[in-house]
């Protein structure tokens, strides 16, 4: 465990080395926040330069400030790919209320900037995250034979608690006016790891193995529903989100099972620490990918989730063999 703790700063160091200067979308948001057009100017495409002049920028910004108040921060909500374009959805935090803007980027240049109201878009893509999670849950159910409805519902409840605590904490840097830096990415991952694993740890310890695994499954299933709901509001998701949720559900089931397994053997807190570090790393990488999409980051993230799901290979047979608790009625 100490070795792992020593390796983690090293990992952060390597990870931080890959974060480069401003991306086009970040430059646009910085310009919007500070009112400094020069920040975004080098990132504008020729067409955009003609349409989005300094005067135009000032007029749009002043209009936004009049309507919503001074901009205090922003945070990236989602990235959508449409052919050669990437559309970045940002939540702008303003004094009078938040709103969403989209920035369209192609070949490292800003091609578009729009104000966006939330609209519900019903596409089959909404179901991709849920389909991935259900596939993983079915796999667990088929193996264990018996389904734990109550535990899945419990997992649902604890996810809602976790997300209610996690979301405001993750948005804290944006409210403080810091956004898009490595620090905010790591903070986002840290909060997700600590809150989610913490809630799962306190819920799964002391439960039998099968119940704990289903609590993790319920947690993962609700997370997939939540992601599907965000997709409904913010745009489409790719089939990759199905794979991601498949792995995430296995990951949550695995860590919840591990908490139950380790607690009775006296190393529950160490298991929690390990799960927290893995979750921190995986979520930080996923957040980093949102800012700077790259295939290898995605591969490393999914591999991390996959490896963290491996304990299920040991836990599931044990859960299946677990005798029914004998209750003296």
């Amino acid at each position, binding site marked *: 465990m100490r070795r792992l703790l020593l390796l983690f700063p090293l990992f952060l160091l390597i990870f931080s080395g890959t974060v480069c200067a401003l991306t086009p979308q970040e430059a646009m948001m910085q310009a919007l926040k500070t009112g400094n057009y020069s920040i975004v100017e080098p990132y504008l495409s020729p067409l955009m330069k003609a349409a989005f002049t300094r005067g135009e920028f000032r007029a749009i910004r002043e209009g936004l400030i009049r309507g919503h108040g001074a901009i205090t921060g922003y945070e990236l909500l989602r990235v959508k790919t449409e052919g050669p374009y990437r559309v970045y959805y940002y939540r702008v935090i303003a004094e009078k209320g938040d709103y969403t803007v989209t920035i369209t980027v192609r070949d490292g240049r800003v091609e578009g900037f729009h104000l966006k109201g939330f609209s519900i878009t019903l596409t089959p893509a909404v179901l991709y995250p849920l389909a991935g999670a259900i596939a993983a849950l079915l796999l667990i159910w088929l193996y264990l034979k018996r389904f734990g409805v109550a535990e899945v519902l419990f997992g649902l409840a604890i996810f809602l608690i976790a997300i209610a605590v996690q979301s405001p904490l993750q948005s804290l840097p944006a409210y403080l006016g810091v956004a898009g830096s490595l620090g905010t990415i790591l903070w986002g991952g840290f909060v997700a790891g600590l809150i989610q694993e913490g809630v799962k740890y306190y819920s799964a310890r002391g439960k039998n193995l099968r119940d704990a695994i289903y609590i993790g499954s319920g947690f993962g299933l609700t997370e997939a529903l939540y992601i599907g709901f965000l997709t409904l509001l913010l745009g489409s998701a790719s089939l990759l989100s199905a794979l991601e949720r498949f792995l995430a559900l296995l990951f949550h089931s695995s860590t919840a099972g591990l908490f139950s397994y380790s607690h009775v053997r006296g190393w529950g807190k160490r298991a929690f620490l390990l799960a927290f570090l893995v979750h921190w790393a995986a979520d930080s990488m996923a957040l980093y990918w949102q800012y700077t999409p790259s295939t290898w980051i995605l591969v490393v993230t999914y591999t991390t989730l996959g490896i963290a799901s491996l304990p299920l290979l040991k836990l599931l047979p044990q859960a299946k063999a677990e005798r029914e608790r004998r209750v*003296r009625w």
Partner: protein
Amino acid sequence: MDELTVVTTEGIPGYRVVEVKGLARGGVVMATHIGRDIIAGLRNLVGGEVKEYTEMMAKAREIALQRMMENAREMGANAVIGMRFMTSNVGTRMAEVYAFGTAVVVERE
């Protein structure tokens, strides 16, 4: 008598009480998780046994009994006579089960 004997009667046939150690007791307040509460709520709609709560109360009795026996052993007793269970509600979805009896030392007659 090596094992601790627990009976609900005032005495144990074939044995005589040689010393009364005092009141042995053990209690627990139990609740089940929200998932089971939801399922129990659904069962309440259709009627029948609410297995989630049956199991919870059975476990609570077991824990209370074990704690009472532990208490009796600590007092140096080898039997508990006149043992009783008592139960009460704590809040809306929690129940307290309390086990008590007289911790005694018995010898074969």
